[in-house]
């Protein structure tokens, strides 16, 4: 008999579904659904109490409507009512509705929790299971708070039914993932480990999942699970399959449990106990042996299950990375799979081999498969598989095979799928740099990259090639010659023009001796590309031209003519026009000596890690990327690189030289480098050289302000900028088509001074310009903001500066608003911008010893003094960025206080006129869950609250 008979459904539901299916158009469907929604709504609101059956029917209809993608905004109450029904079917449908439709923030949670509480206490296993399922599926914090302490009890109680134990284990696992802080460890932990010995394999499976997650977080507490897991695994692997009855799946003994046990063992190093270790080795050998036996069934399910276990065993062998014998066998096994006719196995073999390649014992063995992998790259029909082949080639690359691998990747790039081109470009660029013995090869490779896939070559890649050429004088002549030749092609990619312009501008003299590449020829070649390029590239070319004037006095006249032409001097683009004007002027009035000094060859870049690597890691997520350093990698996936973080967090340093050659690729990887810079450097240029009219001091300040603002996004609204100012003091707070407002501020104790720069972006003057700062009544008494007068006229393209003096009287949580009013072309403009004056600006960092910290931490132990918040990471979790943000927030970071080095501990004092408030904070990142926990303790509740709000939005 089928378990679900088809006749027992609800007729009304079936009719409704048929109606929907018969709808000829989307409109008809929507109409029918709206009609039904109205019907259900009226039924729910009607005076007549609905019986359980009708409620169930309507809830089912709502579920169906929801599945079709329509919003359901009612019915929750009815579903909650169903939970307290005594009838199983009604309760079940209520729970179903809730786990599909109720989100974790719902206000109904309290009511739901009540029903769950009753069901958990009911001692009816079916009801208990429904309740546990609901907790696990919703997994909200409120639920964790309500039940986290009950569930371990249910799990380890002697009289709990097996099916309930299973659910309880997974429910606890889920809560541990969503709210780890709420799940108490306790005496139950020891008993959970013993569930690995349970009779019921379902319970063992669920318990293994739970223990694996817990062991990742606190390995020491669950150490004893290793021996039990090995024993269990050994029994499964060596048993004749009949022993396990139902858990044998297509002739494979308990494959799922085996996989889980092997995963659990990957949380630990190889067992130290010799007998245990040999028992485990024996298991692994048996699994490897079984792979060689003839299949017991032709069904794909059989081989799937068998190989699932095999791959997990190989993963464990790679993780242990200690038995050369097993590693080589694993590698051979994967080698066989590389040529298997099942695509899935080829895919997984490529993936596993990637991790195997980073083991010193098997790196050589992996390399023997290079031809197979290359042919996979060429012949696989499936892009997923080809992508894994690229990954593996990247992982197995070393000095001995780098030329072959880079060549293969380059040739694959020509036909590669668009979706993976950028990644291949990055990989090729990294390998070419890492294994370049001969830098001419490197230059050739990158130029080839640009030729083949110019659109996918990001700024980081071409910045990097220039950094390397600048730093290595043995390759400069070759680079100049090669780019010169590459530029001969009638159509070349703009990135090539950038690299070419830069390199010829610096090193064109090295090839100028050859009449085929005389200065004039070089210049004409570059200039022939000029008109096809975008503004940033043209700007770069103009800089190359001025460099040419210095390198080759003989072409000065030609270049001056070009600069003098209307298309340059009167270019519609301000940046280009300004460069043309200034460069022309410079070339006319500066003496040769000055020119030579100003336009001297670029100094070498400081050595640091390639920013390309950081980019690739960002793209791929650090977990699956083979390590670039030859050091061995933790197979479990942590390849943290402190250096990357540095690259991301460094604010660009603007050296004088860099500014003059305005487009010098910056060593750090700021993607918005060009657009930001183009508006800045020309001012500094004139500033520093004093060849133009004396710049106002405001302008030079403005330069400073904007220079550390590395991600200008001109169209964003003011509120979006605001949060960024919590951890920094300078930058652009507002920008629209007319006006740009920049800020620079400094604070000392309870006083602050803010320089506000208003920039007129238009070509018309602003009249009647006035500003005022408004605060609400509460804030008025807490914070004084005094404005200095501001010029009522702002000329076209000019900036004016205003000073605001700020005094913090007592702690505050509101924000003052800066109102700006001015006339532009006859219309009155009103702009209101939130001023980024927050409580944390009045922080003074405090250094203290670990002992003092803990003493104070304890002193601030009253419940209202502590505020804690757990939140999801909005940005990539990066130690150095976090550090920079905390420092920017104003506290001192205390090293060595927290036993866990991944956590951050800080201290500071908020200064107000009336009081000083000491503040301690602790931030605990959890990279796996992508969550943070922030704890603040201060002597004042409102301060704790406000600081927590401000800081928690920053990650």
């Amino acid at each position, binding site marked *: 008999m089928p378990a679900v008979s088809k006749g027992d459904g609800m007729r009304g539901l079936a009719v409704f579904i048929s109606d929907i299916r018969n709808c000829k158009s989307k409109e008809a469907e929507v109409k029918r659904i709206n009609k039904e929604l109205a019907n259900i709504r009226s039924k729910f609101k009607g005076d007549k109490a609905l019986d359980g059956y009708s409620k169930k029917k309507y809830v089912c209809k709502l579920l169906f409507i*929801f599945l079709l993608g329509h919003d359901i905004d009612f019915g929750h109450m009815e579903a909650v009512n169903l939970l307290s029904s005594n009838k199983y079917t009604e309760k079940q449908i209520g729970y179903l509705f809730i786990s599909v439709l109720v989100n974790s923030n719902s206000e109904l949670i309290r009511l739901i929790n009540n029903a769950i509480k009753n069901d958990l206490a009911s001692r009816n296993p079916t009801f208990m299971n429904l309740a546990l399922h609901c907790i696990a599926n919703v997994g909200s914090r409120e639920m964790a708070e309500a039940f986290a302490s009950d569930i371990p009890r249910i799990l380890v109680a002697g009289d709990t039914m097996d099916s309930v134990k299973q659910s309880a284990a997974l*429910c606890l*696992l*889920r809560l541990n993932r969503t709210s780890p802080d709420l799940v108490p460890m306790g005496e139950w932990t020891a008993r959970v480990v013993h569930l690995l010995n349970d009779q019921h394999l379902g319970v063992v*499976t669920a318990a293994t999942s739970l223990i694996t997650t817990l062991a990742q977080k606190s390995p020491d507490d669950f150490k004893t699970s290793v021996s039990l897991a090995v024993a269990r695994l050994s029994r499964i692997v060596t048993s004749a399959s009949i022993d396990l009855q139902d858990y044998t799946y297509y002739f494979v003994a308990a494959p*799922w449990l085996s996989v889980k046990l092997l995963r659990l063992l990957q949380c630990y190093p190889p067992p130290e106990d010799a007998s245990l270790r040999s028992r485990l080795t024996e298991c692994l050998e048996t699994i490897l042996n079984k792979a060689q036996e003839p299949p017991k069934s032709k069904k794909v399910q059989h081989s*799937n299950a068998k190989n699932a276990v095999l791959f997990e065993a190989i993963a464990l062998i790679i993780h242990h990375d200690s038995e050369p014998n097993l590693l080589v066998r694993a590698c051979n096994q994967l080698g066989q799979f590389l040529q298997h006719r099942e*695509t899935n196995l080829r895919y*997984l073999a490529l993936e596993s081999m990637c991790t195997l390649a980073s083991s010193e014992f098997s790196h050589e063995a992996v390399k023997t498969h290079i031809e197979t992998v290359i042919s996979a790259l060429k012949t696989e029909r499936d892009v997923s598989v080809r992508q894994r082949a690229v990954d593996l080639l990247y992982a197995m690359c070393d000095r001995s095979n780098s030329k072959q691998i880079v060549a293969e990747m380059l040739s694959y790039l020509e036909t590669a799928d668009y979706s993976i081109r950028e990644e291949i470009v990055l990989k090729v660029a990294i390998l070419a740099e890492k294994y370049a013995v001969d830098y001419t090869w490197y230059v050739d490779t990158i130029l080839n990259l640009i030729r083949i896939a110019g659109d996918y070559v990001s700024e980081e890649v071409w910045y990097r090639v220039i950094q390397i050429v600048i730093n290595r004088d043995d390759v400069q002549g070759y680079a100049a010659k090669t780019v010169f030749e590459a530029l001969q092609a009638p159509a070349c990619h703009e990135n090539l023009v950038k690299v070419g312009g830069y390199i010829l501008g610096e090193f064109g003299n090295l090839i100028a001796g050859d009449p085929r590449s005389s200065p004039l020829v070089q210049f004409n070649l570059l200039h022939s590309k000029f008109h096809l390029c975008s503004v940033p590239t043209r700007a770069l070319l103009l800089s190359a031209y001025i460099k040419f004037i210095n390198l080759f006095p003989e072409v000065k006249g030609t270049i001056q003519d070009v600069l003098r032409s209307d298309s340059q001097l009167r270019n519609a683009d301000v940046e280009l026009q300004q460069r043309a004007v200034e460069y022309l002027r410079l070339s006319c009035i500066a003496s040769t000596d000055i020119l030579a000094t100003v336009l001297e060859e670029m100094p070498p870049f400081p050595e640091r890690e390639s920013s390309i690597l950081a980019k690739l890691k960002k793209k791929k*997520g650090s977990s699956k990327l083979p390590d670039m350093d030859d050091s061995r990698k933790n197979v479990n996936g942590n390849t943290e690189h402190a250096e990357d973080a540095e690259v991301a967090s460094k604010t660009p340093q603007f050296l004088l030289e860099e500014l003059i050659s305005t487009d010098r690729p910056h060593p750090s990887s700021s993607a918005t480098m060009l657009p930001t810079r183009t508006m800045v450097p020309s001012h500094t240029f004139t500033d520093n050289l004093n060849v133009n009219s004396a710049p106002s001091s405001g302008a030079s300040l403005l330069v400073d302000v904007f220079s550390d603002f590395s991600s200008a996004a001109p169209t964003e609204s003011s509120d979006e900028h605001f949060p960024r100012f919590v951890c920094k003091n300078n930058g652009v707070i507002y920008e629209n088509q007319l006006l740009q407002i920049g800020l620079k501020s400094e604070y000392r104790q309870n006083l602050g001074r803010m320089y506000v720069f208003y920039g007129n972006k238009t070509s018309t003057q602003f009249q009647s310009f006035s500003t005022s700062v408004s605060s609400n009544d509460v804030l008025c008494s807490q914070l004084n903001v005094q404005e200095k007068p501001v010029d009522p006229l702002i000329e076209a393209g000019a900036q004016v500066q205003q000073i605001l003096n700020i005094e913090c009287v007592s702690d505050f949580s509101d924000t003052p608003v800066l109102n700006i009013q001015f006339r532009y072309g006859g219309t009155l403009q009103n702009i209101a911008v939130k001023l980024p004056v927050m409580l944390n600006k009045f922080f003074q960092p405090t250094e203290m010893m670990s002992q003092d910290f803990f003493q104070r931490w304890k002193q601030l132990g009253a419940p209202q003094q502590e505020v804690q918040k757990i939140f999801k990471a909005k940005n990539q979790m990066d130690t150095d960025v976090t550090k920079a943000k905390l420092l920017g927030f104003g506290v001192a970071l205390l090293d060595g206080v927290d036993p866990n080095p991944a956590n951050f501990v800080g201290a500071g004092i908020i200064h107000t006129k009336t009081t000083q408030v000491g503040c301690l904070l602790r931030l605990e990142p959890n990279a796996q869950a992508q969550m943070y926990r922030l704890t603040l303790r201060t002597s004042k509740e409102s301060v704790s609250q406000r600081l927590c709000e401000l800081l928690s939005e920053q990650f």
Partner: protein
Amino acid sequence: MIKAILIFNNHGKPRLSKFYEHYNEDTEQQIIRETFHLVSKRDENVCNFLEGGLLIGGSDYKLIYRHYATLYFVFCVDSSESELGILDLIQVFVETLDKCFENVCELDLIFHVDKVHHILAEMVMGGMVLETNMNEIITQVDAQNKMEKSEVSASLKICYLDQIQ
């Protein structure tokens, strides 16, 4: 863990969607569409794994799917799950549906969404695999049905009594 389980037909019509992480309704629908586009453009006989779409979390997540007649069964999982293991799980799910509905077809899924959810709940809970043994799953489903039947017949009796009076 399993982040989402999606079933849709060859035209992308969702037949079951179960998310174990909270998204708002719009995002859920977008994820279904995105996943359908990713999966449906793939040939038969290519491998059953691919990287997740951007909405579901990109390359940190894998889509593991099987195509049966008119339906796609897609599991979106993180790196802690065994790919082949999940493939087996899909097979167990389908075989269980087949036993419960007797030659399951798309229509069964349409008209018995609730039942499909209940069967799935016996296998996966909060994104974690609860049970993989088909007999155990079917026993549980049978037990549910028995309870349901007894409740239905009980309520019929009451109706009957009502009518007599």
